[in-house]
């Protein structure tokens, strides 16, 4: 039983981080109709910057207990990269999707070199702090409280995003723009401003996810590409552009991965992509996506 609980906890933690990145991807696609391959770079940027930010914060005497809020702040601070990148993407809004993919993939590769230039080629990690909030133990079950806080943060983001999109005027305008850009423009909505806000929000979701994961792992040059592949599995399963789909897809990927590692480690990736293939065959729009037909 405790083995099941440990696997569940590990899978949900992985899903929480995946959800944050995939949510950003979904938001940008839902409103801007751009498949942003650079979302993995935002995740990696958040991780690298989080390490630097915490390093400086410690020099200024920050208490270890403030690790989590400090990492969230570091992720939010990176929001400034959103508007200029969105401005660059405007050149391909009305062009073929392949141009959008090529441009965002170029961004992904450029970011990788920027990381190498700024932080070096070696993986970087936070020296301490991961266990500052303690560990929950019950028999053989154990889970660092930090992991639990990250899961809670992801749930809060999911609830907050849902509330923002459904219950606020700005959220309604976002959804209206996603539904019918021309109509929104005709009604006086500054569409480019909306795009800029949405893209920044998507970027911040990625950078915050990267910052939150770094105490448990390490920042490395390959993490952007590694993660973007998994994020796309989430999107395919959940349905492109659907926030509920991002949540469901992240949970499916996280849990399938966890249980296949327990039951048959060789199948870790195969199990995930079997589901991706099955979804593409039997429900091409994804579990929560809307069919284009």
């Amino acid at each position, binding site marked *: 039983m*405790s*083995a099941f609980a*440990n*696997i569940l*906890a*590990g*899978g949900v*933690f*992985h899903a929480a*981080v995946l959800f944050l990145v995939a949510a950003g991807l979904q938001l940008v696609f839902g409103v801007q109709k751009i498949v942003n391959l650079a979302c993995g770079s935002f995740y990696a940027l958040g991780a690298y910057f989080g390490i630097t930010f915490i390093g400086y914060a410690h020099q200024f005497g920050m208490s270890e207990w403030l690790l989590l809020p400090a990492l969230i702040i570091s992720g939010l601070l990176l929001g400034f990269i959103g508007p200029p990148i969105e401005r660059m993407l405007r050149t391909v809004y009305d062009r073929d999707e392949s141009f959008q993919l090529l441009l965002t993939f170029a961004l992904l590769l450029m970011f990788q070199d920027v990381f*190498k230039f700024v932080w*070096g*080629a*070696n*993986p970087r*990690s936070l*020296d*301490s702090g*991961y*266990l500052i909030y303690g*560990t929950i*133990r019950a028999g*053989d079950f*154990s*889970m*660092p409280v930090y*992991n639990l806080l990250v899961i809670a943060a992801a749930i809060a983001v999911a609830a907050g995003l849902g509330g923002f999109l459904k219950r606020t005027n700005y959220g309604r305008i976002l959804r209206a723009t996603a539904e019918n850009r021309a109509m929104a423009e005709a009604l006086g909505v500054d569409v480019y401003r909306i795009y800029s806000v949405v893209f920044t929000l998507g970027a911040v979701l990625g950078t915050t996810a990267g910052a939150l*994961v770094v105490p*448990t*792992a*390490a920042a*490395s*040059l*390959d*993490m952007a590409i*590694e993660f973007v592949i998994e994020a796309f599995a989430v999107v395919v399963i959940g349905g492109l552009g659907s926030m509920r789909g991002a949540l469901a897809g992240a949970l499916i990927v996280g849990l399938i*991965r*966890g249980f296949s*590692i*327990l039951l048959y*480690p*060789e199948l870790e*990736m195969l199990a995930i992509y079997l589901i991706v293939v099955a979804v593409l065959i039997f429900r091409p729009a994804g579990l929560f996506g809307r069919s284009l037909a």
Partner: protein
Amino acid sequence: MPVTRRRLLASAAAVGVVSASGGVFSPAIAQNKPLRVGILAPRSGIAAAPGLNGIRATQWAVERYNAQGGIGGRKVELVIEDESSPKDTIERFSKLVQQEKVDCVQGIISTGVGLALGPVVEESRALTIYWDGTTQDGVDEKIPNPRYLFRSTDNECEAVMSSLLTIKNWKGKFVTVAGINPDYSYGRNNMAAFVAILKRFNIDHRVVTEQWPKVGTMDLTSHVAALKAAKPDLIFSSLLFADLPVFMKQAHAAGLTEGTKLVFPAAGWQHTLMKKEFTPEGMLFGHNTLYFANPQASPLAKEFVAWYEQTHKDYPEWEADRAYFAIASYKAAVEKALAAKGGSWPSQDDIIDAMVGLSIESLGGKGAWRKDHIADQTFVQGLTTHNNKYDFVTLGTFESLYSTDLQKPPGANFWEWIKTAQFNV
């Protein structure tokens, strides 16, 4: 004497004749030119840190050689290129040999790159010395009886040593065994060697789970949970990239390291990242061919470690030794061949012949080249301690073994050799 057109043409013709008779004059000309050594090492990605260790050790050695007149009287120039994917590395190797005209190529850490490059080395007929990356799989098929290629000790040496030390330290104290090893030939062979040696000595054991994370996986919480679920008495892991400290951190957080015997033959590659706060004492920890804090180290090794610490604010690991061993072997071989030829510059074949059987003092201890062009070197493994001045673990008690006790003899099959070998522990 006035320079006339006729005299100028005559001089030019004379220069042409002299140049054309290269066979007569080339040794003297060659001896005046710098010796060019090409280096292929990773400078980015998950193997960047060991790549950098190797490059720095080579640069340190070359600076010393050049200050003392170079190798065989010729200054040494390094031409450094990246080791990345097999395809790209092969292209860079060809560039080093054909365009840069290097006299020797050294480097290579990745097993996959090493295997792919081997046949190209032989085809190019370019003396090449690998730092690392020699596993059992594929070597016999891809690089049988190499002439131009010299390879590192078998990667499985560290697994053999840690298996023997596991039996020595913990025989009868464990039954259930779990493995978490990188999912490529290195990790697979290390785990297989560990189990084979347990079987060889009739150690009662049961493998309860084997985890194979992809190299560079940074979220290992599910792997840790799976290991925990298997309740092993002992965990064997040849993780060695940046994922190793991540695993230790996550395993410690999950309470996996408490009361479990840990056997990590390749942990020394990340030694400075194995912080005391999450790395326990009493874990079997391999430093491979260089333990930076070895109190019995040679003056040369101590000087290198001090330089490394002062210059790079860091402590070197075994790739520094492998790189030093490569360049020091090359120097010794060139000078041995030079002496044998009475001072005239030796051919590449002379240098290759001089390498075989050569024994030198490397940073980690004695090293030598066998007739099958495989290195023999000194390995260090021991039990971790927190009793030191660093924020990472070092070795409390440790043992040094020469690879003649850990490596299959020339021509033997590794898995058959394990069944009958006389181990000296």
